[in-house]
């Protein structure tokens, strides 16, 4: 079947050993948007955060909608040093899925992201949708994911470019 899509895999990382960070660097500007897909777990259910272009200043904010299976909630956080993507999955043998869509990442406006987290644990867990903002007009050239503990061996992150 001929290639008909406009989605291209830029890079993928599968951890051969536990690591605190996963980073994509030298991201080219040849796409319209970026999509990050992360399948991960860790030992303690640490929070996964994201920083762009190694910016550690308080330039990030987010608004989140969460469901725990029994209650829905919403919250926002401003002037943060990263965007929290969601909690990791500490249940043995289970993995969680996170998607992060970054719009107009090479444009000259502040950057908006749309992210989901899916952490069902067969009787516990959570699901969430969030919008994040990075108040910076630079093109995004690197993305760093950090786990509050360590991403487990086998965690896979893939960065796609949308043409």
């Amino acid at each position, binding site marked *: 079947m001929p290639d008909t899509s406009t989605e291209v895999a830029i890079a993928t990382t599968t951890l051969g050993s536990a690591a605190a960070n996963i980073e994509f660097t030298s991201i080219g500007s040849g796409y319209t948007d970026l999509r990050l897909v992360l399948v991960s777990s860790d030992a303690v259910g640490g929070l996964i955060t994201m920083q762009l272009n190694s910016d550690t200043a308080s330039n990030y904010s987010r608004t989140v909608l969460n*469901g725990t299976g029994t209650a829905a909630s919403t919250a926002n956080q401003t002037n943060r040093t990263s965007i929290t993507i969601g909690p990791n999955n500490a249940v043995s043998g289970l993995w969680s899925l996170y998607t992060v869509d970054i719009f107009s990442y090479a444009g000259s406006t502040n950057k908006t992201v749309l992210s989901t987290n899916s952490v069902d644990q067969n009787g516990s867990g959570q699901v969430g949708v969030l919008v994040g903002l990075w108040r910076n007009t630079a093109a995004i050239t690197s993305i760093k994911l950090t786990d509050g503990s360590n991403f487990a061996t086998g965690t896979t992150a*893939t960065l796609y470019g949308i043409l």
Partner: protein
Amino acid sequence: MPSSRILIASNTLGSAATTVTFSSIPSTYTDLVLRMSTRIDSAPGTADLIIQINSGGNMSYTRIQGNGATASSFRSTGNSTLPVNYLQQSDSTSNTFDSSEVYFPSYTSSNNKVISSFGVQETNGTTAYMRAIAHLRSNTESITSLEIRNGGYNFVSGSSFFLYGIKNS
């Protein structure tokens, strides 16, 4: 540069059908994405768009939804299928369809399968639903077939189903 998203199969209904099945899904991709636009020809009140993976079973989920008035969360375990969305029904605004996307990462891995879905309705009415659901299939077999159902009703002509394979390299 090779594309990473390839259309594996599609089905846009030319006549009403109770189920749509994608079988013999090749194992040559990293992830699967299923996108659907559906409506049923009945008005049972509420009806779920559901998917059976392989022969079914071992499903649980955690859901959040909003209907324009309230937001709520729910969890369920021990299911045979995974629910995705409330279906647009025959008494909904004419020619409107619900929309859903389901993401299946690592569908051939020997791990339990995490799956996410996002489904929306909008009818220009007072109540329509938006749902984000985290699913878990506590089963390590590869996903080789997806049967899309609706509780025994008919998907109307024009309902569409697209299955994509995603390659990460």
